[in-house]
């Protein structure tokens, strides 16, 4: 058994899962599964994952080693890749795939393009925001205004999230999105300012952070759960402040 290979496999898998938005218990389990199916004994792998770093300790015939991997930079929500890494670890557990094959697959996945291309995502942003404006009580052309607001908010988040933590990006994006809706109502194109604002910014809400926080707390990962819950709260507060700022201009 090549120890360095096992380390690379575990760290790469953990790093990717964390960046793509998996739950903490899933990351810890997957790292352990990879190590165990590569030949390390079950009680010789210890793993501790926080939202910004991964600690793994392994005991092999060569001795005990602990390594730390710092995970920083922009999070890319990609549940498809989370699912694929999950499947890969199951496959390796059943012995259908060797360490080398798994490593090649993981590295390929790291560089693979997103499942849905940029135009599809812009269309999705438009359709989800547009639909929400109608569901929440808008009518007719509000669909279009909501859709445009949604595209603005989504694309602005995608651009700013590269430079600042997610809740600052969301603050800016929801401010611009809400200002667009306020502008529409000031010009007199629509009377439903509220539904356009909410439709445009609803896709920015921290749905994944809330769900992950709850699942982490349920699994007993208190540190990760509280950190993710705080992220969700900050994001929600940022959106609320942005909306308040925008509507204070119109009233």
């Amino acid at each position, binding site marked *: 058994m090549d120890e360095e290979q096992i380390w690379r496999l575990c760290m790469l898998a953990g790093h990717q899962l964390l960046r793509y938005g998996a739950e903490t218990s899933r990351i810890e389990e997957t790292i352990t599964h990879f190590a165990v199916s590569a030949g390390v004994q079950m009680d010789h792998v210890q793993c501790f994952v926080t939202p910004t770093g991964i600690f793994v300790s392994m005991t092999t015939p060569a001795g005990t080693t602990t390594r730390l991997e710092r995970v920083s930079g922009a999070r890319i929500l*990609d549940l498809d890749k989370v*699912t694929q890494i999950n499947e890969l670890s199951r496959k390796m557990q059943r012995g259908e795939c060797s360490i080398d094959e798994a490593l090649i697959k993981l590295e390929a996945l790291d560089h693979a393009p997103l*499942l849905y291309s940029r135009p599809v995502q812009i*269309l999705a942003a438009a*359709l*989800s925001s547009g639909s929400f404006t109608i569901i929440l*009580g808008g009518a007719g052309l509000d669909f279009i205004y909501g859709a445009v607001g949604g595209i603005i908010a989504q694309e602005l988040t995608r651009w700013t999230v590269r430079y600042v933590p997610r809740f600052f990006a969301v603050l800016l994006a929801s401010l611009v999105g809400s200002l667009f809706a306020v502008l529409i109502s000031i010009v007199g194109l629509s009377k439903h300012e509220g539904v356009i604002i909410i439709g445009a910014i609803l*896709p920015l809400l921290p749905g994944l952070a809330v769900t992950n926080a709850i699942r982490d707390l349920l699994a007993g990962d208190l540190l990760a759960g509280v950190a993710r819950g705080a992220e969700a709260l900050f994001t929600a507060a940022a959106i609320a402040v942005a909306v*308040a700022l925008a509507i204070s201009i119109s009233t």
Partner: protein
Amino acid sequence: MIVSTLLSALATIAFAILNQVPKKAIIPSGILGIVAWLFLNGALKNGANVIAANFMASLAVSLLSEVFARYYRMPVTVFAVPGIIVLVPGMDAYFAMRDFVTHHYMNGMSMATETVLIAGAISTGLVIAGVLMRSIWRQRKHGAR
């Protein structure tokens, strides 16, 4: 009613695509959107409290997400995250902020409290579904041994 049901499916699917869910999960998430909308409005029409209605809808969506996750062998988040988006109390939050901005602090506080309670009801649905599925799953694992 039919239009808004279909639109909630569309909105859920589009939101799922923004989260890059696997292609196989797209149809199930549309179903979750419809389930969420029908449960929420069904409960509201039958005179349920708005917080109770959100709790019921969230519980239904979360349980169905857990079932889908086992069936399709995908993480629960793939289904639960888009599933609950229809329930998010966006308009309540908006009215609360508008009241605050226009100095109607008492109205704003009551709207904000309702928003927080609805958000709590949605999370409780997720928690209960998680606990139920965990206990069932663990029992089955032990039974197989």
